[in-house]
């Protein structure tokens, strides 16, 4: 019967979505390396879904709010009650990486669309046609330009690039970034100022 094959697809199972993430975070905290690898796909998936639904509803100016998305993802996957700063920091650090990749993918696909050469128009590009020509903005900058500049920065000073990732894509404060990277708050702040000035200059030069 066809019904048998359908049953797997149905798989009406109760999924306790908050369980695994909390567990993985505990593993991260206890220093198990593989934990981050397990966390990333979960967070990536959730963020992608969130970003997709946000982009659909967006206003034409297309400034994504990665910070808000990451926080929302956190609330959905972990819940507001778990307030261990360390757990949050780990989660946000992973989310920053995921968010950065999602936005770049999205912007690239949108760019491809603009040039009319897109074959893989799935996924994020469900935005309305009128909105497709708008660049994806993050932190007041075009995400692709920011990405290019960030990669240049990473060649010179990877730690500074990482702090930018945590702050811009993960919505972390300098203190939280410092905690994730295991450096002093003051160092993280100094890194951030330098990185920010440097990126601004790069991005402005890019525009001009």
């Amino acid at each position, binding site marked *: 019967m*066809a019904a048998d094959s359908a049953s797997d697809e149905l798989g009406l199972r109760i*999924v306790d979505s908050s369980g695994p993430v909390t567990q993985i975070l505990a593993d991260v905290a206890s220093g198990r390396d593989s934990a981050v690898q397990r966390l990333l796909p979960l967070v990536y998936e959730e963020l992608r879904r969130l970003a997709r639904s946000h982009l659909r509803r967006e206003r034409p100016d297309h400034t994504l709010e990665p910070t*808000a998305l990451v926080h929302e993802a956190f609330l959905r996957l972990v819940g507001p009650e778990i307030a261990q700063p360390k757990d949050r920091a780990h989660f946000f650090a992973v989310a920053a990486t995921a968010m950065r990749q999602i936005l770049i993918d999205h912007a690239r696909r949108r760019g491809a669309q603009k040039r009319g050469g897109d074959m893989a128009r799935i996924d994020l590009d469900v935005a309305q046609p009128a909105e497709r020509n708008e660049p994806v903005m993050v932190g*007041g900058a075009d995400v692709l330009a920011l990405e290019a500049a960030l990669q240049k920065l990473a060649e010179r000073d990877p730690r500074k690039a990482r702090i930018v990732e945590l702050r811009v894509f993960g919505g972390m404060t300098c203190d939280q970034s410092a905690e994730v990277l295991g450096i002093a708050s003051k160092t993280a702040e100094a890194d951030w100022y330098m990185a920010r000035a440097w990126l601004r200059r790069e991005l402005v030069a890019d525009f001009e």
Partner: protein
Amino acid sequence: MSDARFARIDALFQAAINRPAAERETFLREACGDDEALFLEIASLLEHHSAERGILTDAAIALAPSLTPDDSIDTDFPRPFGRYQLLRVLGQGGMGIVYEAQQDDPNRRVAVKIIRPGLATPGLIRRFRLEAAVLAQLQHPGIAHIYETGLGDLRQPYFAMELAPGRPLMEYADSLRLTPRARLALMARICDAVQHAHERGIIHRDLKPGNILVNDNSPKILDFGVARVIGQSDQNVTLRTDAGQLIGTLPYMSPEQVAGDSSRIDARSDVYALGVMLYELLSGRLPLDTRNRPIVEAARMIRDDEPTRLSSIATHFRGDVETIVTKALEKDAARRYVSAGALADDIRRYLRDEPILARRATTWYQLQKFARRHRELVAGLALTFIVLVASLVIVAAYALREADLRRLADDNTRIAQNNAAAERRATYRAMISAAAAGLAAHDVAAARNALAAAPEELRGWEWRYFNNQLDHSTWHSGGLGPDQWGAILSDDGKTLYVSDGSFGIPNAAPVLRAWDALTGRPIACDDPALNIRAMLRSPIMQRRWNRIIMPHMFDEQPALRIVLPSITNQSLGARRDETLHCATLSDDESLFACYTQGGDRRYSLHIASPTGKREPRTIPVELGGNMRLLFDHAARRIACGDGSASVVIIDTNSAHEVSRLIGHTDTAMAFAFSTDDRLIVTGAWDNTIRIWEVETGLCIGIGRGHADQIDAVSFSHDARTIASGARDGTVRLWNANTLECTAVFHGHRGDVLSITFAADDAALFTTGRDGTIRRWEIGSKRQHRDVLVGHESYVYPIQFHPTRPMLASGGWDGVFRLWNTQTDEQIGTMFEEGMSYARHLDFNADGSRMLTVSEDKVLRVWDVETGRALSGTEATTQWWQPRFAADGRILLMRNGAREVTWWTPETDDCEVAPLDSLGEIGPPLVSPDRRYAMIAGRQPGQPAELYDLVEDRSLREFSDQCERFAERHVLGAFDPDSRYWLAARNDNTIAVLDLAQRRFVAQLVGHADQIFTIAFSPDGSRIASAGRLRTIFIWDAKTHQPLAQLQGHTSYVWALTWSADGSILASSSGDHTVRLWRGD
């Protein structure tokens, strides 16, 4: 660029930004030496470092406030937060950050306190909403008014409150070198404010000098009730917050607070804190020197140690002052002043050199102590004997004669009776306040309980008004059983059917019940096929808790065969031992679906054709205890709920999964498809509703607002509106595009089980666990309920017709309108070419005539029946508030003239009476008995005058009580018996003046801004007042206590008036509407 060079640039950049901006260039020049490129490089970076706007600013990267509790303060200002612009940080505490902020409408500066979201659990947020509504009702000049409370984008609770000027209490008192008497008087005023809150059941719990700002001798208490609202469970949280804060708080904590016994914390805990502050104000020291002590030791001292006697610090406090302070600081709350008001009373008695009450109580207490000390002596004796002994001691102590003693006893009885009455009145006020708060938070059960607990003999208009708010439904009919199914409508939309009962319960086979959809009249009905259809197609397919509705399979329920001729256990491929759990029929009755469970406890989903046209499909599933099935309108898809937070959409043809709706965080048990089947709305036990695209499973919106699990949702036929029903007993309407909540209906007691839209989307029908079926009006009819919409601009004068259910209003649009107060419909207009905007109106005694005055200074008299102006009655003058007298004549007082005129419009007869003693006068207001006229000052700032028209003399002695009335028309009100005059004063209070006794009686304190209107209810028992700040106050005219506050207008309230029977209060507003507040 090499890494080394980058590192050098980095180092110099860091060094530069750590220097003052002015020195940077010099520093760099020096550091870079000849390397001009390096200098330029760093200089350009510095330029970008200090850029105020643009990319990667804190605001740009942190568009959402951080969730984390350890976030640093964002210093990027101004930045928006909801309706506010945050301007700067005022302070930071254990629970959040306080900002100075700007609000646009109304335009004002406010303090916004944003609570750290780490504290915000869902349960806390629910309580926050309820208690926040209570706090918003605290309106007292001595309490920083909380304008608004709410949740931010990330559900951080916040308070917007009055930004109070002033200095902290001790600093203020010391800098002005206040005398002890001034300090006592100041403390009495602080007590008044605390008492105001206590009467509304709100305890501060964190009173300390730093929380009291004083400006020009007026104290203002901050953070009232905030500790409780944010769930600060006293000791626990306080002790965990930073030590610096605790040191400031601990000395003011009462013994029961430091003991951590939150159940014993009540108003008297605040009395203790007031006692500590009074002690400190008078002596400059704390009663217990807890500073520099370990916290545990300090807590022990507060519990056990007696404070240093005040008189040992300053001998002149020996006596009454020391007695007062000692009583406030009693370790046992039962021996303290019962309220802040009692403390204030004793302070004032002392200041007036009257005997204080504290001493009597203390004497009695000492007698008790005497008895306790001599236990062996009094042991075994009856209480009466102790009293006798006590009396003898009193006699001995005060050498009272017997008669005095009896009088003393009588006094005590009277005081006790008065106290009991006062207690009941306080209970009533607290219950009304709690009911209003419950309603504002849509916690209807709490509101209902509060109203039920209000003492019956005190229930008045406000009780009836709030009681009306408990039920918004047009009609309801009860008697549905616990196994009722949701309602379905007949094809013509005129009849509602509910299948009531269950196959599974003996003697409870489903009975079909029917109602007239418009009137709610039950209709006799017996149609077995319709009964089965009503069950299978109702919005409730399956109730929760795994309740087996139909425990036998089809073979044993021939009734089902009427609608499902081909469905048998065999045709479904189900075993004999399987039971049916949940079943549904598609709209076109082409498909049937059900969950069954076998003896092995495994579940299967079956999809079959009722007539056997298609081969049934059976899909084994894993299920939780709660199931739900719903076909879309075209029967192409079926939504399957399995008790989890997700819902699966299955193609009915292929039995393949189409999409999976993932996002709810708790069981999703209610769903409905849009008419075009493109969207599905789900309601879940996580208290949210969500809209999804059926095809992709994409969540495109979340609706938040319900306070409990959602068990019913429905789409309107035009797909513009969504309705949801929840266990909190409310039904909510949502804009289907934005998921904005557009209405909240109260009525059901408990779970709302099903929702059905009327065919024209103008009404809703719901069934609930309370066994009722209800009808609710929606759309335009609902919006205009109790709101009279028609004026095209601000509405000014309003008045009820003396005999008919009719209200007249006049607006800035120049038109006078008549309204039917039963249907809320406009029934007529009074307008002539050239009329300017409306200023005043009055009906004559029988309601056949109405007079109007417009800004063009023309008085017109209208025939109410025809809506026409009577010819020859126009008069151009400066008459401001003419009134019909009982005999039909019109009483005129002309602006600026020194006379009153009695005018008969029909004959144009004028009788003029001079007012010789008056000078130039402004617009007058005449008392109901036409004896008194209140006359505004002619010039701004000139005091108003009360004039006795009968004795023809001015009651000048009142003038100093009525500081205000610079503004025309804004005078005050006479009571219905013309015994009292109520005057709105400059300090936003209302003075009550006794006209016959010619004296000041009381002051109504509560308004936080200018008062525009005051109105007595016809029976004289209630006073309504309102003004610039939109809120309408209801006062008890006897006790002069505030009873309720009514919110609804979105702009100032200009006028208030009561219907002749006192059941309806009407208000006109700058929001272009008139509202009717029904207490019938």
